[in-house]
């Protein structure tokens, strides 16, 4: 993991001191709310429906046990005993007092964390594949590059007041688990014919009220050019991005309006000026950052095979969990473990202080002190010996963390929605709970197979509904909550925006309608191997429309 150097410590410490003073001046009345609001937002403090909300950055979703324990401590001491892991691999606390935020930020600084750039029109937390550094299908760990981008973009003077917020995601695997094509910049590590590392460089993806899939701006940006090319992209955006209308201010609109060709020309022209400047990324600097992310020394544990075979004989639930929630690791004696924060009927992405402490303990004991937060709002232990899985699983079961539903219909992404969010137009969490309960039978979920269901409580799409295989958008219609359903979205290599299937439904109707959709798929798939998304791509929306609204209705 990256460790703060003297500069980092001094910088974060200075920000805590500065914000403490700003809070003091606000509470004394010296600063008005209008003056204070942009200052608190720069430090991750929002005001939501019921209280303040503090959003804390978890760079590329990587945490140590010590950091996770500190989050548990903050939940317990300063909040209401729980936190919410988000689709940007961050954590949000829903009830901190403003007067406590300086102390919270001080506690975070002690474990090398902060809330800087978790709000505002700047470059936000850089996200990455949550299986990075452990998965068999990557060409290199993408996190050193995410860390380089984090350092470069932190309080970058030129890019702190962009037309709008800016999100970057990095992956290094063939299978995209970081949803890079719905980010402002999406980077995929690739090797060229000479075996050198570079990036497939996507720009202009995003969700919100105008969902767009990112465009490939360059098939290969060399490692040395990462910062100069990114600077060129940011400069073109900063110069031409619209500032007159916040709904048209994201880079996706600029790329769309200019067209990818013209956008690329503008970037190339700017890049030609700066590509050999001080922005060249020296190989030795990359190597220095890579050293922080050196994989843990994993000793061989061939006892795992027998341990698993033995446990499988006695415990079908454990076997199902291993099959569903454990992924292949580069070391054959190890596995990548997904800890579901989606117990059936629970609040997606929420973890209690006790659960956070449990995960920290398990990471320390069995997981080489590493935890990841996934953009799908689960936790991941990336390096667990297969021999330790039975013991680990037993502890997870005790704390409602062992639901074997990773990638299944109840592994739902949901934004906080109208239960917390000041922008929301409808509730998300109760909808997620009702759907998960409707499909509570895990065997049935496994039969349905991979199905990504994502729920947003407003058009801003924090719950990624546009790219859900089934996407649900909550809106307000004549004073009532109303839910639009879209189908066929995806955030993987074949990223696509879903299509609205027809008129929406009330909260009460919705779980039944989702069941109709799933049953339509089950009846129509050619085999168990044809996933929901494959079937939907093959047949389109027609069978779903007929099942939901009737043939006669559809004909009209």
């Amino acid at each position, binding site marked *: 993991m990256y460790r703060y150097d003297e500069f980092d410590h001094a910088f974060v410490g200075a920000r805590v001191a500065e914000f403490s003073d700003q809070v003091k001046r606000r509470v004394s009345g010296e600063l008005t709310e209008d003056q204070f609001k942009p200052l608190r937002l720069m430090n991750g403090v929002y005001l939501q429906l*019921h209280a303040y909300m503090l959003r804390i950055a978890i760079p590329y979703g990587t945490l140590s046990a010590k950091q996770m324990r500190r989050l548990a401590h903050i939940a317990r001491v300063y909040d209401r005993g729980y936190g919410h892991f988000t689709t940007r691999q961050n954590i949000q606390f829903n009830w901190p007092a403003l*007067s406590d935020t300086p102390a919270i930020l001080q506690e975070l600084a002690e474990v090398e964390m902060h809330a800087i750039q978790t709000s505002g029109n700047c470059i936000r937390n850089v996200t990455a594949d949550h299986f990075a550094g452990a998965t068999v299908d990557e060409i290199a760990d993408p996190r050193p590059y995410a860390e380089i981008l984090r350092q470069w973009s932190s309080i970058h003077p030129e890019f702190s007041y962009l037309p709008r917020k800016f999100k970057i995601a990095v992956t290094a695997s063939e299978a995209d688990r970081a949803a890079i094509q719905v980010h402002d910049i999406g980077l995929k590590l690739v090797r060229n014919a000479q075996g050198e590392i570079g990036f497939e460089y996507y720009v202009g993806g995003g969700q919100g009220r105008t969902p767009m899939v990112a465009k490939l701006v360059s098939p290969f940006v060399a490692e040395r050019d990462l910062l100069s090319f990114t600077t060129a992209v940011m400069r073109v955006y900063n110069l031409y991005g619209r500032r007159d209308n916040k709904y048209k201010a994201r880079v996706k609109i600029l790329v769309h309006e200019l067209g990818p060709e013209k956008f690329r020309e503008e970037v190339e022209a700017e890049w030609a000026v700066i590509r050999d400047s001080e922005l060249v990324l020296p190989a030795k600097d990359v190597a220095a950052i890579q050293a922080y992310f050196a994989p843990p020394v994993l000793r061989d544990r061939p006892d795992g095979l027998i341990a698993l075979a033995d446990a499988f004989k006695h415990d079908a639930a454990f076997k199902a969990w291993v099959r569903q929630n454990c992924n292949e690791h580069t070391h054959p004696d190890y596995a990548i473990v997904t800890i579901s924060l989606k117990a059936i009927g629970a609040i997606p992405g929420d973890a209690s202080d006790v659960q956070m402490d449990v995960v920290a303990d398990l990471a320390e004991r069995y997981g080489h002190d590493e935890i990841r937060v996934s953009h799908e709002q689960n936790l991941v232990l990336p390096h667990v010996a297969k021999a330790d899985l039975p013991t680990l699983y037993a502890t997870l079961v005790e704390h409602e963390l062992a639901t074997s539903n990773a990638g299944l219909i109840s592994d739902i992404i949901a934004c906080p929605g109208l239960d917390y969010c000041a922008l929301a137009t409808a509730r998300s969490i109760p909808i997620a709970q009702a759907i998960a309960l409707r499909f509570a039978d895990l065997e049935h979920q496994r039969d349905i197979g991979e199905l990504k269901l994502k729920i947003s409580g407003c058009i801003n799409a924090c719950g990624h509904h546009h790219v859900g295989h089934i996407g649900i958008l909550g809106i307000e219609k004549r*004073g009532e909550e109303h839910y639009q359903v879209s189908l066929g979205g995806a955030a993987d290599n074949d990223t696509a925006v879903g299509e609205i299937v027809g008129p929406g439904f009330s909260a009460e109707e919705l779980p039944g309608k989702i069941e109709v959709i799933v049953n339509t798929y089950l009846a129509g798939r050619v085999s168990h191997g044809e996933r929901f998304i494959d079937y939907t791509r093959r047949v389109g929306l027609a069978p779903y429309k007929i099942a939901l609204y009737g043939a006669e209705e559809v004909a009209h």
Partner: protein
Amino acid sequence: MKPDKKTTSKVLTANRLNDGISVWFTGIDWSVNINDALVAADAEAGSALEAVADKATAVAQHCDVVLIDVEQTANGVQPLKLRERIRAFGPTITYDTGSFAANYETRSTAANVEAF
């Protein structure tokens, strides 16, 4: 049917500066319970509350001070909009199971949750 803005009852609400908690103006002070709120039943009373709103913002001890539409019901004061009802009565989800129960705390009551 859309409420008639001129005749709809109103209360004054804000978030407390220090902890951000939602509060309602009682006529004298601010309360965390909407049922303590002073309900302005006519335009004149509404204007008086607006004056309080301006003052509350000016002295800077409250944020997001706004008038909202309410109705008096058998269960007490109820905001007309769902957003404001949730703001008044807390999240409609509960945290009273498993390891979440240890620090369970909310202003919601069972009756309020049922109201949704």
